[in-house]
């Protein structure tokens, strides 16, 4: 009995050894491990996720005027700097590790949705090296340096704990009314 069992085991093992190799087994094992780990990263599920919602009262984020990640965003009409939204922050919050300067350049931009002119404060984010991405220099209303009070070529980080300029946000601080 035991002899027959021994022969059967030996026959199956030799057959397996003839058909496969240790290298092919390791290869298959490795492929299954890597493939299994990469599975969740495939973009299939994300592509079916919900679209971004526009901010209340703002244009659709699918349009250039409504996308805070691009220079054509309506609030950026008087900005001069790197977009915080492109540097780890958002259009109205500074990137982590930087602090917002309290003194600012201010201007008005027209919201294309309601047609109103909003007062926008362009606070600089300070305390880390210049972001260097998404430079946006629309600067409407800026005047040459000899009009000192309407010139934006300043480092507004002067009012922050650190003078090192990183990027800029655009915060709504009021609604401009018809001038009397």
């Amino acid at each position: 009995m035991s002899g027959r069992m021994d022969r059967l085991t030996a026959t199956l093992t030799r057959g397996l050894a003839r058909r496969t190799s240790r290298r092919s087994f390791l290869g298959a094992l490795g492929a299954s491990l890597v493939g299994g780990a990469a599975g969740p990263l495939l973009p299939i599920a994300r592509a079916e996720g919900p679209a971004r919602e526009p901010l209340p009262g703002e244009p659709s984020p699918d349009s250039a005027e409504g996308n805070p990640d691009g220079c054509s965003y309506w609030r950026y009409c008087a900005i001069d700097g790197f977009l915080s939204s492109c540097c780890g922050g958002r259009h109205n919050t500074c990137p982590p590790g930087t602090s917002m300067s309290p003194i600012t350049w201010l201007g008005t931009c027209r919201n294309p949705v309601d047609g109103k002119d909003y007062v926008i404060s362009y606070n600089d984010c300070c305390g880390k090296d210049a972001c260097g991405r998404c430079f946006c220099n629309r600067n409407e209303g800026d005047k040459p340096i000899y009009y000192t009070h309407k010139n934006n070529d300043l480092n507004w980080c002067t009012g922050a704990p650190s003078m090192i300029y990183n990027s800029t946000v655009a915060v709504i601080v009021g609604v401009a009314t018809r001038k009397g």
Partner: protein
Amino acid sequence: MKRFALPAILVAAWTSLAHAESAPINYMLQCQGCHLADGSGKPGSVPSLVDSIGRFVRVPGGREYLVRVPGSSQSSLSDQDLARVLNYMIRSFGPADVAADFRPFDAVEVTQVRRPPLSETESVRRALLSAMEPR
């Protein structure tokens, strides 16, 4: 003539409302960048307006100082708008210091004293502060 009276009054009311609203917006656009929304400024570089600006109009030379400081004098505001912004700032940031006989700024006064801007503000400011009554 009587039937024209109401439209005339409405226009006058609308105009004064527009004027009343333009001073806060002009403060935002011309002053707030440094003096901040609450007028507190930045100690050491931007003087606070809070409980301070109203005291200047009570000492000799103080009214002229407020019009001639470079931020006022060289702003892009018209004389009329500058007068309105100054009145707005005094009423907003120093209401307790406004005397009963306070005479608001107007375009005529601003036109007379606005030019030239003060070239040296520190010593003038110190002299005015020392002339004020201690609190």
